[in-house]
């Protein structure tokens, strides 16, 4: 068995990531050059903690983008002669080293780790975004109007939050459930929110100017309807947008589990901000409630919400990992980090390093998001 030494291994890994280093450097320089114009992200560059977090997040972001270039093997290709091998072993046919060794089916762990970033960076931020839109659309009126709306919505949110997440996933993300219409129903409800949200934003802003309101509403309805039909019902007339039933199921379950948390934060912030003078001024001017909520309260709540979004992408990543860890929802060969952890953890006694790439990848990404959130919080408190 041929192996490469320590320096060749890490030198090779560092070299494979070259597009990522270039991307990180360019992003950093662009941010430095425009630091006056990008708001709180410009201040972020003053905080060492924030920059560290940002760099870790960017590293995984560019890894996901350039996964085809970075990875050395196909993540699903199995080399039967090279099962459960330690790091640095050379694959004999192609003479390419398997930098981090191979898993129990002889798949290259380095390439799987690299491709695994794609799944996480696609689902986690987009599910968080949808959860935020759901939470904001429901949290604003609950906090602003109070009363019965608030009681009912809060009761539902607390009910979902008092449920162990893992049971929720066992009930919602199984192959059996995918046979029923439940995931599509859930997704159809959740994906309705972005469209409704965009329309409400428009209507509250341009209600006096039908010349602008009408064309924009039509554009949103067409674009939104197109995405909606593709994502939820897999029936995009142009055939461009589609979503795997597996992923849609996971997506809906993750949004379901994380939107109550967003709802509570938005509700709390709204209740705090609605006592401010500028809200009273807008009320005196006779603005509509939705205008006040979306154009007075929401922009002033953005600081805590951005910080929370960073943390929440981290939680979502952990949730996705939990799903993989319990073997729920994903295709068995899927190279996502959680499933990889689950598949390899039985072989720790034989090859202790077999679990390291995926565990460290997941932990470092979440750590990066946490540091980024800390940096943002620190810098936004300074103003």
């Amino acid at each position, binding site marked *: 068995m041929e192996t490469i030494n320590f320096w060749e291994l890490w030198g090779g890994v560092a070299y494979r990531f070259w597009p990522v280093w270039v991307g990180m450097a360019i992003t950093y320089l662009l941010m430095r050059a425009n630091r006056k114009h990008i708001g709180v992200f410009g201040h972020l560059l003053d905080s060492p903690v924030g920059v560290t977090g940002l760099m870790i997040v960017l590293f995984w972001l560019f890894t996901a983008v350039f996964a085809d270039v970075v990875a050395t093997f196909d993540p699903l290709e199995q080399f039967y002669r090279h099962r459960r091998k330690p790091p640095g072993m050379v694959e004999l046919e192609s003479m390419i080293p398997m930098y981090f060794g191979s898993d129990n089916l002889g798949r290259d762990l380095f390439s799987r780790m690299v491709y695994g970033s794609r799944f996480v960076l696609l689902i986690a931020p987009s599910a968080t975004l949808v959860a935020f839109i759901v939470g904001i659309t429901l949290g604003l009126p609950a906090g602003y109007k109070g009363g019965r709306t608030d009681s009912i919505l809060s*009761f539902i949110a*607390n*009910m979902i*939050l*008092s*449920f*162990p*997440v*893992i*049971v929720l996933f*066992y*009930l*919602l993300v*199984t*192959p*059996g*459930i995918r*046979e*029923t219409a*439940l995931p599509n129903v859930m997704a159809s409800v959740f994906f309705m929110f972005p469209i409704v949200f965009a329309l409400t934003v428009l209507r509250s802003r341009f209600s006096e100017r039908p010349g602008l309101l009408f064309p924009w509403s039509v554009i949103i309805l067409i674009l939104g309807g197109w995405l909606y039909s593709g994502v939820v019902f897999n029936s995009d007339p142009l055939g461009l947008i589609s979503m795997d039933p597996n992923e849609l199921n996971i997506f809906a379950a993750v949004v379901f589990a994380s939107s109550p948390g967003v709802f509570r934060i938005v509700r709390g912030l709204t209740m705090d901000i609605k006592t401010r003078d500028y809200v009273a001024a807008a009320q005196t001017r006779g603005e509509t409630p939705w205008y006040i909520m979306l154009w007075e309260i929401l922009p002033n709540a953005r600081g805590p919400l951005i910080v929370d979004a960073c943390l929440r992408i*981290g939680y979502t990543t*952990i949730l996705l*990992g*939990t799903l993989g*860890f*319990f073997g729920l929802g994903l295709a068995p060969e899927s190279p996502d980090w*959680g499933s990889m*952890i689950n598949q390899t*953890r039985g072989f*720790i*006694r034989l090859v*202790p*390093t077999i*679990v*390291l790439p995926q*565990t460290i990848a*997941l*932990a470092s990404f*979440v*750590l990066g*998001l*946490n*540091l980024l959130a*800390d940096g943002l919080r620190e810098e936004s408190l300074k103003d």
Partner: protein
Amino acid sequence: MLRFILQRTFIMVLTMLALSLVVFTLVNLEPNLRKLALEQNNNRMSQEAVDSWLDKNGYRRPFVVQYGEWLGGVLTGDLGYSTRFRMPVNEVLPKRLGYTGILAFWVLVTMVPSALLIGILSGMREGTALDRILSIFSVATTATPEYVSGILFTVIFASMLGWFKGVSNVNNITFENFTLPVMTMSIYGMGYIARMTRASMSEVMTSQYVRTAHLKGLPFRSVVLKHALRNALIAPFTVILLQFPWLLTGVVIVEKIFNYKGFGWALVEAAENNDIHLLLACSLVSVVVVIGTQLISDVGYAYLNPRIRVES
């Protein structure tokens, strides 16, 4: 105060009812029922046999009848029959909860004092090197989920160093096989409590009465211990209690990694095999834990901080 407690208890009962309805609907979905039938008959069954088995055992009766039957049982103290363990839920659940209780006890005993210590040490002198190191430690621990840290600890302490065992056993708890589960859980929860304590401590340290104590010439140690500490510990008290719901989810993962057959393990077994009554009972337990701790934390907060009045 009494009214507040009664109101919360009412909400708890309402949540339990609503939640049990949701769970009941989900477990009675056709694919889940089929899973149950197959599991009960060792997976060898034709579609007709599945149907007749479900018919025979009363899973095809109207939803209201089945739910009413279960609810009637619960109200008289009978939680039903666990199909997975083949015995009444009333026999399965207390035993498993007891095992998890032992785990949770040791987690709290190790987690809370160390988290408070870390928080106080880093919050009493904000911005120092010690504060930076401890803060990074707290962030790192909260960022590492149990299924990552548990496995890393197993690699380091069980495979490489050989100090502890990576597999636990409820019937024979020893230092070797119990350290890793406790460590995994307490380190994950530690960071969050430590950060809250730090925030609260650093706020108290800038307050007027602490400055007065400094200016009186009191030594730093007694300023921290006698003046700052008591007020700084009110906020973490709430946070510690609100960790209980998290302990419940964490327990599921940790018990699965280390094969510790407690409540979390039973919950996973129930969910995997669509064990209807056990799953419902587990959900009720978790609602009681979550809302109960919220209630205790609210009441305790008002008791510790007389400036706060509980509003009903």
